[in-house]
């Protein structure tokens, strides 16, 4: 499709400081941490677009301080009048706005409630009366307000709306609800095939990042498990009392330090003139400093480090509940050391293993800070692309589509873990 969003996306490595920024593009310190797309901006701007289209009051919140926000780099991304070509897959002819979707969701919820009520043995208002009688009026109101508020406005609607939003064009606020506000698959198409009429068959640039993120997350999870399992076993079965508490304290201490600082520590170590390179060159192992940051060695080490606790605690809890006599019995009957672990300890610790691995995988795949700080200049993490669509790219629907793909893969991963390890969601989330 000839959407301007696609115009420059092919070049991740290209630094694009767009000439037509709507807000003064003076060096803006506030924006530095966020817009720090450095050498790999995916600023999908169309240089030729007129600046008048870019004033987007809703998307670029101007703060009272008058400081230009991060988002204003919306140059040209906002759909130009000619930018909704007829060939984009159009699902609906008339505009379906946020309000319609919102009302539809509420209506479906009400209908479901009604159906439930007719089919249920105990009618809904009987149940409500019982609930109120049990808790008293004030407490009932408190319970209902907070839980429904949480579930509807914080969990369900934002996710549903993000899903809806990912099927929309990137429009100006005044166009929303207008004739151009129609559903489209172009955001998902873009992830798969790139911009229409592009040179490549598939959008390898982004697909590669996606698969690399997933595979790297799996590798980090496995490394983490191998690293943590022996210690968890040691803590759960081999030490008791003061020694155990000291180990716990030592484990917890580093994790009081901010995640960003922990990642930064690895940057120091693996930097070009950092400790590792100095040592290796000094010892004569390397002739010249090796680019550990560029090769993502620092990133993987840092990511493994970041989520150690989330692996070790579920493992510890699961192994701790194993009766030590079982290990003794297996040993007495001549089981080898390896067999004891594979046949006795690990099957018992299955929920813990599932929980630890799932948490670590999710957090690694969803990590943004560590890749931002430790990632090499030429490599991206999938979350970084989402952030760039949101931030420098200024294309929120595109970002929503990418975010939804990430969410979907995470759900699939959790389902696989639940199936393979035969555990419930509660076992996984319990930490």
């Amino acid at each position, binding site marked *: 499709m000839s959407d301007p969003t696609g115009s420059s996306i092919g070049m991740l490595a290209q630094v694009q400081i767009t000439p037509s920024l709507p807000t003064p593009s003076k060096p803006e310190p506030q924006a530095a941490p966020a817009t720090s797309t450095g050498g790999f901006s995916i600023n999908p701007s169309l240089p030729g677009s007129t600046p008048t289209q870019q004033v987007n009051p809703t998307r670029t919140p101007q703060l009272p301080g008058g400081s230009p926000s991060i988002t204003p780099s919306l140059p040209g991304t906002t759909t130009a009048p000619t930018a909704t070509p007829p060939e984009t897959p159009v699902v609906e002819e008339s505009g379906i706005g946020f309000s319609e979707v919102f009302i539809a969701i509420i209506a479906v919820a009400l209908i479901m409630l009604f159906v439930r009520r007719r089919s249920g043995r105990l009618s809904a208002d009987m149940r409500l009366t019982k609930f109120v009688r049990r808790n008293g009026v004030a407490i009932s109101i408190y319970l209902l307000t907070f839980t429904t508020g949480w579930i509807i406005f914080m*969990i369900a609607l934002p996710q549903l709306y993000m899903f809806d939003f990912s099927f929309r064009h990137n429009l100006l606020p005044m166009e929303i609800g207008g004739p151009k506000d129609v559903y489209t698959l172009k955001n998902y198409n873009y992830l798969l095939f790139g911009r229409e009429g592009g040179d490549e068959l598939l959008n390898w640039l982004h697909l590669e990042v996606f698969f690399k993120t997933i595979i790297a997350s799996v590798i980090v999870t496995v490394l983490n498990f191998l690293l943590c399992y022996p210690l968890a076993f040691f803590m759960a079965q081999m030490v008791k009392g003061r020694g155990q508490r000291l180990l716990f304290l030592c484990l917890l201490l580093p994790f*009081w330090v901010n995640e960003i600082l922990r990642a930064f520590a690895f940057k*120091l170590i693996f930097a070009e003139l950092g400790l590792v390179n100095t040592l290796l060159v000094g010892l004569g192992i390397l002739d010249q400093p090796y680019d550990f940051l560029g090769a993502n060695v620092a990133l993987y080490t840092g990511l493994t480090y970041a989520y150690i606790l989330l692996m070790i605690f579920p493992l510890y809890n699961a192994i701790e509940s194993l009766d030590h006599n079982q290990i003794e019995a297996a040993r007495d009957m001549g089981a080898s050391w390896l067999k004891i672990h594979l046949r006795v300890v690990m099957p018992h610790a299955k929920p813990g293993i599932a929980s630890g691995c799932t948490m670590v995988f999710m957090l690694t795949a*969803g990590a943004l800070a560590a890749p931002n700080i430790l990632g090499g200049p030429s490599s991206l993490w999938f979350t970084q692309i989402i952030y760039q669509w949101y931030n420098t790219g200024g294309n929120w629907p595109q970002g929503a589509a990418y975010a939804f793909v990430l969410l979907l893969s995470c759900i699939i991963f959790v389902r696989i873990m639940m199936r393979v390890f035969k555990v419930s969601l509660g076992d996984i989330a319990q930490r």
Partner: protein
Amino acid sequence: MTSNQIRAWVMRGYIALFFLYLFGPLLIMSASAFNQSSYPTITPWEGFTVEWFHELAQNDRLVSGFVNSVWIGLGVVALSVPTALAGAIMLMQVSDRVRPWYYTIVVSPVLVPGVIIGISTVIFWERFGSLVGLEYETTNNPFFLTIVGQSTFISAYCMLVFIARLQRFDKTQEEAALDLGATHTQVFWKILIPFLRPAILSSIVLAFLTSFENYNTTVFTMVARGTLTTELAGLARFGVNPSISALAVVIMGLTLIFAVIYEIKKRREEAVVEASVKRAAMKRRQDTAAAAHGAA
């Protein structure tokens, strides 16, 4: 050497390496805060200095980010702890048929990546505000968005803390109080809340700390403003100044102090418990002895 001894040595070596991996990077970073080199590193060592600590105190953006972080942390505590409490109590009361569904929904934010919570919160409130006709600044205020976005999943964390505690709650206490004529509100405040006190305290700490160090969600919801963590990330990314190492030293120093206080307190508590257990055991022995004596 027997194979057992070898295994013990391997284990020791492994634990040593593990903790080297855990503490090594932090120690190196701390050391770099005192190096005169203008780039944060310990090699080459150019001499001792505390200059970077002065520079840290003069970094206005870090200071204002810190203030923002504190306000957001307090807001998150105020929103997520009551939400989590309500969510946990509801879980105990919903019917068995609904419970698995309810649990899946409220626990799902724990597993959803923070990036997704961030972007969906921003997108939703932008539209929702205009739908119900609120001022743009109300629903798109970075502080509002950040507090709501973070509370989405922090409430779920805290709820898990409450559930763990509520599972040990003796329902008969509640019934006894109601039988004795207490109102529901009284039962809530005089029985349930005191019972949950430790869980409330730990979830307040958990909520504040999680909020304080969150990056993934905050970086979306703070729009153009920054918290300490997002400001730090900007500095760490370009990493050209050792004052960030100096900040790490400050944080680690505070951590160490808190950890030591916590440990001492815990030890003292344990000593008290042990003493009372011993006393009870001794008393029981005396009682049985007396009873035996009486019987004789």
